[in-house]
């Protein structure tokens, strides 16, 4: 499956190259009078190139695949710019941005007040802002041969991951799945052994949707006792696939990539909601923008009962300066982010199991990117 994905990416890149090649040929005749030190502005694949040179960025590994696709498409169109996104993890990414080493950072959680304060040193006359760009459903995968379409609610999930529910034929699970033939297999709940934004968002969901059953503070580090752990989403997915009776959480791409069935969430809506990118986008649309000024930090509504909204989602941000971005990198940063937030950029996300941002939010992101200075 991984092979398939890279093949698809390759095909995408090849397509983008072909289109750009054709456009370069047709553009030969036209006069390009934009200055900017020779950086030609070309519209390829709806990508407006601007600026040149190296663009360094780093941060969240949760959005690495999205970045890979964006960077490939963008660079196929804009050869003057080299974009280098290092998936170092959100914390390290934000630190590097605050030290002025990178043009923008990717992060799973919005800047904290202290970090905003620090950012004023790097952003002259401005501050760091969060732009929500990539969403993704967190899938809860399970390995229970013979049981399809398993549905669970937040409370049951919390009890399973807190080792309170220990077997698959527990009455709480039976109640939610009256038609399923549940075995008495022991539940093996897998969590991340490393610090992770996925853990953070997963426990945020549990804590908010089932506060009575999940009393731990949401954090990047797994707080509950018991259960088993594995390193990285791939480690958790491998173990779920390997062990009968296992359950674990990871980004949707790992579930579809490994053919692991995902739990549908019983949110209180008419039907249990499947973990799909479209359903995740619906839940993100329920979010409220709580960022002040140009900051677009979202507060997700984990308790939503909207029909077809999958509330267990993760939103990752790009962090830039509202004003005071480094002059050398500003044009390229703006042009790249503009592509990422564009319709094409967001559409590319759904193909790799990320959720595009809902229209209302992404249009605000676009407006903010236009105003970056």
């Amino acid at each position, binding site marked *: 499956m991984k092979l398939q994905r890279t093949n698809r990416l390759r095909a995408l890149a090849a397509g983008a190259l072909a289109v750009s090649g054709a456009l370069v040929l047709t553009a030969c005749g036209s006069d390009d009078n934009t200055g900017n030190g020779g950086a030609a502005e070309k519209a390829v694949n709806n990508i407006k190139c601007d600026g040149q040179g190296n663009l360094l960025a780093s941060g969240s590994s949760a959005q690495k695949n999205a970045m890979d696709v964006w960077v490939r498409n963008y660079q196929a169109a804009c050869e003057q710019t080299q974009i280098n996104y290092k998936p170092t*993890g959100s*914390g*390290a990414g934000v*630190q590097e941005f605050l030290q002025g080493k990178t043009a923008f950072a990717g992060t799973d959680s919005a800047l904290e007040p202290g970090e905003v304060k620090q950012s004023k040193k790097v952003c002259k006359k401005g501050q760091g802002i969060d732009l929500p760009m990539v969403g993704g459903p967190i899938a809860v995968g399970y390995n229970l041969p013979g049981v399809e379409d398993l549905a669970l609610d937040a409370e049951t999930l919390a009890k399973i991951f807190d080792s309170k529910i220990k077997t698959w034929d527990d009455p709480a699970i039976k109640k939610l799945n009256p038609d399923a033939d549940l075995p008495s297999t*022991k539940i*093996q709940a897998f969590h991340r*052994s*490393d*610090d992770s934004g996925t853990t953070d968002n997963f426990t945020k969901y549990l804590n908010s949707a089932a506060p009575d059953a999940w009393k731990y503070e949401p954090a*990047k*580090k797994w707080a509950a*006792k*018991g259960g*088993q*752990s*594995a*390193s990285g989403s791939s480690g958790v997915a*491998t*173990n779920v696939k*390997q*062990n009968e*009776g*296992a359950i674990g959480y990871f980004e949707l791409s790992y579930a579809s990539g490994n053919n692991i069935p995902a739990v549908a969430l019983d949110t209180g809506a008419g039907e249990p909601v499947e973990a799909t990118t479209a359903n995740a986008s619906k839940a993100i649309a329920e979010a409220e923008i709580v960022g002040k000024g140009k900051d677009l930090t979202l507060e997700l509504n984990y308790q939503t009962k909207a029909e077809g909204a999958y509330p267990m989602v993760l939103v990752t941000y790009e962090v830039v300066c509202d004003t005071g971005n480094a002059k050398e990198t500003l044009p390229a940063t703006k042009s790249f982010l503009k592509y990422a937030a564009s319709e094409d950029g967001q559409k590319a996300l759904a193909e790799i199991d990320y959720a595009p941002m809902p229209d209302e939010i992404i249009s605000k992101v676009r407006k903010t990117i236009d105003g970056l200075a």
Partner: protein
Amino acid sequence: MTLDSPPATAPPPDADTDGGKARTRPGDRIFSGLARGSGITLLVIMAAIAVFLTWQASIALAENQGNFLTTFEWNVNADPPVFGIAVLAFGTIVSSIIAMVLAVPVSIGIALYISHYAPRKLAAPLAYVVDLLAAVPSIVYGLWGALFLVPHLTGLYLWMDDYLGWTGVFAYEGGAARSLFTAGILLAIMILPVVSNVSREVFRQAPKMHEEAALALGATRWEVIRMSVLPFGRSGVISASMLGLGRALGETMAVATVLSPSFLIDPSLLDPGGGTFAQNIAASFKEVSPAGVGREALIASGLVLFVITLLVNGLARLIIARRKDYSGANA
């Protein structure tokens, strides 16, 4: 007396040292200088490592809000940081002991078979294959352990639970066998070549005269081994075991790949969970936030491993020194 005149005409054999330093050859001086330099360099490097570890560890310990020795937690990125090595020390020592218990008897068996039982045609290729075991990179052992060994151990563990579960140590609740015991089995395989190779060489050097004398007295082959080979090789086997133990204590990738890390001490060795120093360093290093003392905390845990290894080696030296007097070979 007159016949013994040569000493008078020729210089005495030790005149080189008596007659002054002028006669020392430059090659000797250069070589002894190099040798001494190497020795000193080794000491300096060890001292530098110790100083560095202690210095960095002291930074972390000053910030630590938990008890470094007894806290069951590793939360270095928290503010204030809380961390302790209890679980890591337990896991490191227990998994190494399991490895030793499993590996040393088998290694001695392999060594004896190759040196005393196997026909020559078989001994050489067998020794070669055991050598090959040492050449496999630890990450490959780790992957083999995680993808093959773990799924296949469930049956054995259920059996152990049936018969030995009452001890508590071998209780098993089912589930993926990513436990300290599995790590111990993997470590045992990894240290097998080290222990058996060194033991084999030692057994080979057992004095032939002793063996032949024993045979002449009508001893069976096993009695020969028990009376002349094993006593002679005892200190060598202990040294070999210590080499293996050193590797088991510090093994990183294989353990990190196979273990389900957690910061709890589970009385059952078969249930998933636990951690070791090296595994924790490998797993947590990339998580460390640049602002906190996470890196220093990991170095502090490394210092403890350093000290444990020193103690173990010291202990081994003591045992060897004591055994030497009783060893049949030196009698």
